[in-house]
């Protein structure tokens, strides 16, 4: 495939960022917004075209004779050569997951661009301060995210990984006058930075032993006769493992070095994807404008961790313990986030915890995937869920954004009963809720069902666990739904307009995303995205009993939610009173933030930084000053020598001469 279009996919958002960033303040708001949308629209078209070509052209560089999908290096340019082998290249790797991600990112990003045209202005149509900057950052983010998914080597991924982190930082802190936004952005950056430290060390370990950064050399084998075309290969991954095993120290602290590397790399993923215990930044990140939450903190950036594991999946397969680590981190996070989501009152936070929980689903799915079981169904399910989740979660967030824009608050206690006022928002939000709850035929049903199927294939414990979480998901989403749109009639405050649906720029994305959420479940994902490129019909692995159970669980959960929240009633209060401890802990998110606060402030700041700063000023610098002080003291101490008395002068003179002679005499003796 010609490299021009793929380069443009990256270049247009970058160019938009530069143009809007440098010249934005000289432009009118409208022009800036239009430019941003146009740019993203073009990127969208190009990305769709590229993905379409990849999946459907049947070109030999994309699919082989047996129907296996291949990895194609569209281009790969040296960027920084550390050594002859360790070279960072910037390139474009087209394979099933990156093509799929291109579609997801550009779609959501375009929707958000469009949506923000409406969202980022007030009811009088006045654009927000920094509107141009907002579009510049959005473009920067899109560029970074696209660069991340098409990375040809792990270091390129790391580079863009950092860039998405930075653009996320900038966007969370968009309202920089608000202290909470500033601290949220700081928190997000630092927590993910900490995770990236693990990622970096993992990369260093991996690259040291394997001598390469390239995914194609780590996980796939070249296809003969075609330059730059590769096929996922277990034997390459096995070769990598044997490199580790034949090294001088294959085991470090009880685990193989490869496991360490993979777990450390996964740590990066945990940070970006907000897995326990590095999840604390994501709820706070909701301080950013809602479209940003939809794009970055629901649909794209936060799934980068999942994408990372998927990218290195063949390597993870070599170390089952690493995969199990992934599974359990995911499972714990899923449950934790679901419980917390049940108790939050800020709608964006509920959605944020829901996101954490759903990403954890994807992680679990990857963790339980085994090639020998349903042909690695979990991998496909994970990617499928990533896709559908992106759509319906973006939908939910944008819906929430519409609500917030209309009400001017994040708090659902100020909403209630909005269904009559905002019908479009209501219906699309409902579709999103049904999708995430896993009701047939909405997209979430299919993807979640496959995840549960693959869990069952791996371990019953995980299956039961995740089913429970799925039930909780349905419960808290419908709790949210009812509390926003039902519960009691909406009171319109005097002097305020009644809330109403938003302009087309905001409604259109909702409708489009709702439509996708409705039908996306029917995409035969197994045909497109599988762990090794061999396509299969996932219906062959579809387990109706699992589907029935999960549907049952979801329906029951929705029913409970309906009973509790459809109409104003004391039941929720009773529930809360029934388990005060659990409620309190869940409401305070199990005090993770307080724990981190304690670690950072009490231990790191007060326990390390301050003592070090004190030590530096008083001990180290004090020592240096002490040299000066000692010299001065010595100077003062020998002052009496120069007493002004000639007789003493002579006395010293004589003493000196005699000592000189005497000591030399003694030495000579």
């Amino acid at each position: 495939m010609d490299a021009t279009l793929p380069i443009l996919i990256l270049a247009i958002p970058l160019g938009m960022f530069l143009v809007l960033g440098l010249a934005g303040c000289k432009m009118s708001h409208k022009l800036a917004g239009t430019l941003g949308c146009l740019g993203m629209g073009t990127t969208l078209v190009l990305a769709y075209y590229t993905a379409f070509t990849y999946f459907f052209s049947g070109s030999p560089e994309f699919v082989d004779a047996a129907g296996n999908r291949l990895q194609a290096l569209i281009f790969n340019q040296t960027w920084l050569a550390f050594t002859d082998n360790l070279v960072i290249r910037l390139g474009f790797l087209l394979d099933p997951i990156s093509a799929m991600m291109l579609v997801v990112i550009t779609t959501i990003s375009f929707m958000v661009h469009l949506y923000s045209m409406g969202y980022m202005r007030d009811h009088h149509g006045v654009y927000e301060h920094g509107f141009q900057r907002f579009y510049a950052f959005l473009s920067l983010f899109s560029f970074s995210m696209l660069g991340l998914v098409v990375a040809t080597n792990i270091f390129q991924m790391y580079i863009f990984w950092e860039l998405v982190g930075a653009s996320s930082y900038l966007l969370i802190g968009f309202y920089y006058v608000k202290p909470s936004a500033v601290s949220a952005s700081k928190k997000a950056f630092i927590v993910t930075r900490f995770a990236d430290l693990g990622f970096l060390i993992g990369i260093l370990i991996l690259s040291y032993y394997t001598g390469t950064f390239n995914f194609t050399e780590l996980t796939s084998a070249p296809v003969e006769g075609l330059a730059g075309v590769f096929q996922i290969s277990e034997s390459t991954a096995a070769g990598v493992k044997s490199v580790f095993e034949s090294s001088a120290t294959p085991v470090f602290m009880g685990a193989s070095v490869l496991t360490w590397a993979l777990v450390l790399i996964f740590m990066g993923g945990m940070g970006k994807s907000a897995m326990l215990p590095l999840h604390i930044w994501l709820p706070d990140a909701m301080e950013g404008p809602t479209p940003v939450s939809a794009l970055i903190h629901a649909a794209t950036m936060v799934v980068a961790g999942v994408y990372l594991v998927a990218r290195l999946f063949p390597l993870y397969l070599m170390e089952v313990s690493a995969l199990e680590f992934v599974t359990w981190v995911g499972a714990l996070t899923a449950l934790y986030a679901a419980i917390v989501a049940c108790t939050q009152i800020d709608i964006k936070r509920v959605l944020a915890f829901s996101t954490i929980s759903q990403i954890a689903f994807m992680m679990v799915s990857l963790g339980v995937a085994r090639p020998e079981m349903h042909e690695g169904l979990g991998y496909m399910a994970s990617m499928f869920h990533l896709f559908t989740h992106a759509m319906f979660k973006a939908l939910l967030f944008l819906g929430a954004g519409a609500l917030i824009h209309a009400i001017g608050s994040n708090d659902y206690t100020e909403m209630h009963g909005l269904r009559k006022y905002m019908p479009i928002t209501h219906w699309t939000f409902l579709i999103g809720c049904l999708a995430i709850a896993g009701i047939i035929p909405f997209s979430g049903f299919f993807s979640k069902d496959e995840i549960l199927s693959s869990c069952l294939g791996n371990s019953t414990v995980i299956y039961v666990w995740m089913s429970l979480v799925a039930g909780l998901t349905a419960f808290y989403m419908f709790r949210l739904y009812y509390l926003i749109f039902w519960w009691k009639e909406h009171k319109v405050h005097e002097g305020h307009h009644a809330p109403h649906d938003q302009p087309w720029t905001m409604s259109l994305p909702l409708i489009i995303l709702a439509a996708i959420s409705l039908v996306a479940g029917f995409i035969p994902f197994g045909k497109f995205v599988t762990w090794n490129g061999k396509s299969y019909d996932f219906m062959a692995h579809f387990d109706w009993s699992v589907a029935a159970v999960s549907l049952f669980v979801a329906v029951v959960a929705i029913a409970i939610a309906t009973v509790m929240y459809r109409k104003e009633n004391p039941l929720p209060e009773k529930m809360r009173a029934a388990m005060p401890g659990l409620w309190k802990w869940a409401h305070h998110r199990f005090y993770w933030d307080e724990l981190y606060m304690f670690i950072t402030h009490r231990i790191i700041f007060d326990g390390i930084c301050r003592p070090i700063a004190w030590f530096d000023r008083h001990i180290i610098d004090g020592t240096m000053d002490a040299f000066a002080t000692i010299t001065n003291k010595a100077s003062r101490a020998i002052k009496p020598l120069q007493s002004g008395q000639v007789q003493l002068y002579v006395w010293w003179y004589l003493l000196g001469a005699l000592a000189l002679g005497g000591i030399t005499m003694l030495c000579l003796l």
Partner: protein
Amino acid sequence: MEIKAIMLLVPALIMFCCGVYGFITRRNMIAILISLELMLNAVDINFAVFNRYLWPDAMEGMFFTLFAIAIAAAETALAIAIIINLYRSAKNIDVRDLNKLKY
């Protein structure tokens, strides 16, 4: 009784030490000058004795003594002049009061 070199050298040394002692203990500058004279003369004795007893071939030591005496005289004259000057200015020749310049 034969007079040995050591019998002259020891008194010279004692003289020198007396001079030093005088220099360090006396307060009157004139007394100090006298002490200095003692020291210089001790040196002269040394030279003379060494020449006479150890190296009688040449007269270097004797000549040195002569010159040393002359130099000592010059020194004393100069010192006296300076002391007189000081006396005019300070009305005092106590060496321990010379302590304006110190530290």
